[in-house]
C-alpha cells in the first residue's frame, strides 16, 4: 500500500537555525497538510496546501514557517529560525480529492531544538 514518506525521522538543530522537513505524499493525492504534536499533547493543524498554494493556515504558522512543493513530488516545511518551542513531532499528511477521503499520515519527523 502506498505510504506518505517523511525524512529525516529525527532532526536535531540549534536554536536560530533553519530546518527543512521533507515529505513525499502519495502520488495521486492532491491535498497536503502539515501537523505538529508537542510531546504528550494534542495534534495541531499547521497548514494545508492545494494547487500549489496555501489553502489554510493556523495561528501557529507564522512568518517563520513556509511550505513548498518544489518538484511535483516533494512537499517541504521550512522553519527559518527555530525556537526551543518548535521542538515537536511534525507530521505530513495527504489525501485524494474525494470529500470523505481520510488523511494518510507519514511516520513523522521528531524535531529537537537545543
Amino acid at each position, binding site marked *: 500500500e502506498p505510504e506518505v514518506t517523511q525524512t529525516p525521522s529525527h532532526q536535531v538543530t540549534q536554536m536560530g537555525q533553519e530546518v527543512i522537513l521533507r515529505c513525499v505524499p502519495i502520488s495521486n493525492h492532491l491535498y497536503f*497538510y502539515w501537523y505538529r504534536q508537542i510531546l504528550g499533547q494534542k*495534534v495541531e493543524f499547521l497548514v*494545508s496546501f492545494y494547487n500549489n498554494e496555501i*489553502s*489554510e493556515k493556523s495561528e501557529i504558522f507564522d512568518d517563520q514557517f513556509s511550505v513548498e512543493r518544489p518538484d511535483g513530488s516533494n512537499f517541504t516545511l521550512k522553519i527559518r529560525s527555530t525556537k526551543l518551542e518548535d521542538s515537536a513531532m511534525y507530521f505530513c499528511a495527504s489525501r485524494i480529492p474525494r470529500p*470523505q477521503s481520510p488523511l494518510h*499520515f507519514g511516520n*513523522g519527523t521528531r524535531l529537537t531544538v537545543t
Partner: protein
Amino acid sequence: AQTVTQSQPEMSVQEAETVTLSCTYDTSESDYYLFWYKQPPSRQMILVIRQEAYKQQNATENRFSVNFQKAAKSFSLKISDSQLGDAAMYFCAYRSAASGGYNKLIFGAGTRLAVHP
C-alpha cells in the same frame, strides 16, 4: 469554530474484553466527517475508522465499531476482543464537509488505552 472533546485521558481494558472510548464534538454544520486515529508508541497516525455524518448506519471495521449519535454530537469507538496490539493513543477527529475540499482535521486531545493481559 468546531471543537472535539475526549473526556477520558486514559482507559484500560483486559485482553479479549470490550472497551468504549468517548468523543463529543461541537459544530453548527450538518455535513461533516468523523474519524478515529490510532497512535501506537511508534508515533505513526493510523486510521481506524471513519463515519460520514449523512449516514445513519454506524461504521464497522472488524473489531472496531462506532456509535454515532448525530443529535447528541457523540462519536464513541468500541473495540471488541481487545488485543495487546490495540494499546495506543486514540484520537477522535472532525472534518467539515463545507466547500473547499482541503478542510483540515480537528483533533481531540486523545485517550491513552492500556491493554492488560
